[in-house]
C-alpha cells in the first residue's frame, strides 16, 4: 500500500476503544472480523476474552479495553476483532469500532510524555494528531504478552 521510495510513510489503522482513539501500524494487521462469541478460557487473565474459530484455527482474543485498564464496554454486534500478527503468532484484539486508515510520516509522530504512572502509556509508542484529534499509536509488542512457547 505504501508508495515506493517514500520509506518514511506510515499507514495507521485507527480505531476506538472505550471512546478513546488508538491506532496500529497497518502492516501488523492481518484482517478485521465482526464480533463472534468467544469461548472463555478457564483461569485466564481477565483481559483474555477467550478463543474464537478463525477458519479452522484457534485464535485467542484479547479485550483491548481491559488490557489498557479502560472501562470495558458491553459487547455488541458493532464490535470488531482486529487480527494482528506478531512474531508469527496471530492474536485478535477486541475493539469498539474501526475508524479509518490514515497515512502519515514518521515526522508526524511525537514521543509520548513520560508519565510512567499511567499504565496506558507503557503500551503507547507515540502520539500523533489527525484532524485535531490525538491518536495514540500502540506498541503491539507491549500489548500482546509473549507466547508461552518462549517461556518454555
Amino acid at each position, binding site marked *: 500500500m505504501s508508495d515506493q521510495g517514500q520509506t518514511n510513510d506510515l499507514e495507521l489503522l485507527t480505531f476506538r476503544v472505550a471512546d478513546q482513539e488508538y491506532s496500529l501500524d497497518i502492516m501488523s494487521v492481518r484482517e478485521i472480523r465482526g464480533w463472534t462469541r468467544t469461548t472463555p478460557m478457564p483461569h485466564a487473565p481477565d483481559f483474555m476474552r477467550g478463543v474464537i474459530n478463525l477458519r479452522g484455527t484457534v485464535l485467542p482474543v484479547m479485550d483491548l479495553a481491559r488490557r489498557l485498564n479502560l472501562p470495558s464496554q458491553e459487547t455488541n454486534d458493532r464490535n470488531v476483532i482486529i487480527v494482528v500478527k506478531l512474531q508469527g503468532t496471530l492474536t485478535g484484539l477486541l475493539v469498539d469500532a474501526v475508524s479509518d486508515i490514515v497515512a502519515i510520516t514518521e515526522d508526524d509522530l511525537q514521543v509520548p510524555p513520560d508519565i510512567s504512572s499511567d499504565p496506558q502509556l507503557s503500551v503507547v509508542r507515540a502520539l500523533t494528531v489527525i484532524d485535531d484529534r490525538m491518536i495514540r499509536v500502540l506498541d503491539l509488542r507491549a500489548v500482546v504478552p509473549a507466547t508461552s512457547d518462549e517461556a*518454555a
Partner: protein
Amino acid sequence: MSEQNDPMAEIRASFFIECEELLEALQDGLQELDDGADDPETINVVFRAVHSIKGGAGAFGLEALVRFAHRYETVLDEVRAGRMTPDSDSMKLFFLAADHVSDLVRACRDEAPIPEATSDELLVRLDALLGDEVEEEEADAADFTPLGFSMSLDLPEIEPELNSFEIRFKPEQEIFATGNEPATLLRNLCGLGTATVRCNTSDLPDLEDLAPEAPYIEWIISLQTEAAEAEVRDIFEFVDGLCVLEITGTKSGDDGDVAPTESIETEVEVEQAIAAPTAIAPVSVPKKPQGTKPASDTEDSGADPESKKAAAPAAKSVVRVDLERIERLVNLVGELVINQAMLSQSLDEAGLSPHSDAMNGLEEFQRLTRDIQDSVMMIRAQPVKSLFQRMSRIVREASAAVEKEVRLVTEGEGTEVDKTVIERLADPLTHMIRNAVDHGLEISEKRLANGKSRAGTVTLMAAHRSGRVIIEVTDDGAGINRERVLEIAVSKGLVPPDVQLTDGEIDNLLFLPGFSTASQVSALSGRGVGMDVVKTSIQSLGGRISISSEAGKGTKFSISLPLTLAVLDGMVVNVAGETLVLPLNVVVETLSLGPDDVQMLRPGAYVVKVRGGFVPLYDLGVMLGYRAQRKTDAGAIVLLISLEDGSRAALIIDGIQDQRQVVIKGLDDSFYRAPGIAAATILGDGQIALILDPADIIAGLGNPRGADIMLSERKIANE
C-alpha cells in the same frame, strides 16, 4: 526441500534419508552383536551399512565422511573375516564410531562444521584395534590425496606382501538391468593395487548381429595387491550371480617393483580397456578424462547405493512421501470431520426422521470419514524404535560422562506413535534418560555394596494402553531420596517448612519449576532446566507424566500420551453455559445424583457413593472458574471417569450433548497453557469448545497444594 528444482539436491536429500535407514540398521546390528549374536549375517549387515554410506558419500564428495567410514569399514571387515573377535571394549568403540558416523552424516547434511577432532581420535582408536595393519590403512588413506602417483609412491615404502590374482570377469545381461557398471568395478579393482586389465572382445559379433542390450565383452585382470582375496571378491559383491567371475590367486614375492610410470600406464590401460567397450556397451559409461583422477580412487563407487538396492531382496514395498503432503491430508480430513459435524447438526435441526434416506446416508458418511481418518493416522504412525535408538546413544554418552556402567533395556520398540509425537518426545526423553543415569543410578561400588549388579539398568518401555501410548523410563537405582527432595524444596521456598507431604507429593515436587536435585552440578544435568521443562513439553503434547519411586529399588517415570494429535472420540457436555469435550475413553458411566449420594469429607471436599465405593466429586464449573460452588448438587448429572492410574473421579456437569469425533486443535499459540485444558475443537456451529484433560484437572485439585503448583506453572507460562 526448498531446492526441489535442483535434481542433484533431490538425489542428495534422498541419500541422506537412506543414510538414516542405514544408520538405523547399523545400530540394530551392533546391538545384536553386543547382545551376543555372532552369525555372519549380522556383521554383514553392519558392514554393508557402513559400506553403503561410504559409497554414497563418495558420490557426493563428502570427504570427511568417506575417510572415517572407510577406516571404520576396514576394522569391521576384520571382524567379518573372522580375524578379529570384538570384546566389550571394541564393541563400545564400534558404537561410538557408529554414533560418529551419524554425526558426520548430519554435519554433511546440514553443511555444519565437521567434528574433525573426534574423527581423528576415534580413528586412532579404531586403528589401534587393527594393530599391525595400521600402516596399511595409512596407505589407503593416502588414496584421497588427488595425486595420481600417491599409490605407487607409497607402495614401495611399506613393502607389503603382494598377492597376485587373475580375475576373469564376464558380465551377464542382468548386470546392466540392475544398473551396475563394469567400469566402476574395474576402477575399484584398480584401487586395490596395480592392475592390468585386458579386454577380450572375441565374442563380439558383427555390428549387424549385435544385440544392443547384451554384454559380449570379457575382462581379464591381473591384479597385484596387498588385499586378500576376500577383499577382491567384495568388489564384486553387488554383482554376485550377475556375471561370470573367476578369481585365481597366487602369492607373489615380487613386491617393490612398481614404478610410478608403470602405474600411469596401467591407468591408461584401464581407461582404454573400459573405453573400448563403452562405445558399444548398452549402459552409458561416463567417460572420465584420463589422468584427472587417480585410478586408485576406491571411493568412486557412486553406483553402490543403486546396486545395493538391486541386490537387497524387496522385503516390503515402501513409498517415501513428503511429510507436508501427509500433513495436508491430515488437515483436510480434519476439515472433513468438522464439515460432517456441521452437516449432521443441520440435518438434525431440519427435523428429518432418523430413518430417512438422508440420515442413513449421513451414517454411512460418518463411517467412511472415520475409516479415512484411521487410515490417514496410520500413515503418520511410526514405531518408536528410531527414538529409542537415539536414547541408547544418550545412555552410552551419559554413562561414559559419569563413569557408571549402564545397560539400556528397551521394550515395545514396535509401538507406533504419531510422528510429531516422536519428534517432540526426543528432548524430554533425553533429559529423563540423563537424569536416570546421573541421579537415578548409584555408582558401581555402592550398587555392589547394596547387593545389586554392578551395572545399572535403565529400561525404556513403550506400549499402547487404553487408547493412549505409555512410555516408561525406569531405573533400578536408589530411588528418590525424599528427605533430600523435601529439604531442597523447603530451602528454595517452594513449599512451606512445616508442610506435611505424602511420598507421592514429595516425588511430584521434582516437577516444580526451579527445582533441581543435582547436589553437585555435573556435566550432564544441573543446567538449570529441570523436570518442569520435561513436564511442560509432555503436556504440550497432550500428555501427562507421573513418577513413582521405591527406596533402594529404583524410580519410574511414566509418560502417557494420546495416540494421535489430530482426532479424539469425545463426549460433548454442557457446563455453566459452555460446551466442553471430554475424552470418551475416560468416561465410565453417567449418573444422576440423589440427595443422599453426596457426603462431605471435609469442608470443600466431597465424595459420592457409587455402588458401595466412594469417589471424589468435583464440580467442573467451579473447577474451571465458570461459576461459584452451588449449595446443593442433588439432581446434577455426574460423569464417572477412570484414569490410567486406576483412580476414579466424579465430575458434575449440566448436561450431555453428544458423543462424537472431534478434531483436535492445538492451543500452542495461545498465550498460556490453561491447566486442565488439553486442546480445543471446533463444533458443528463453528464455535470453539475446549477439550478437557480430566486427569490434569484432578491432579491439580486433588491435592491441596495442587492449585499452587498450577499457579506457578501458569506464572512460568506467562513470563
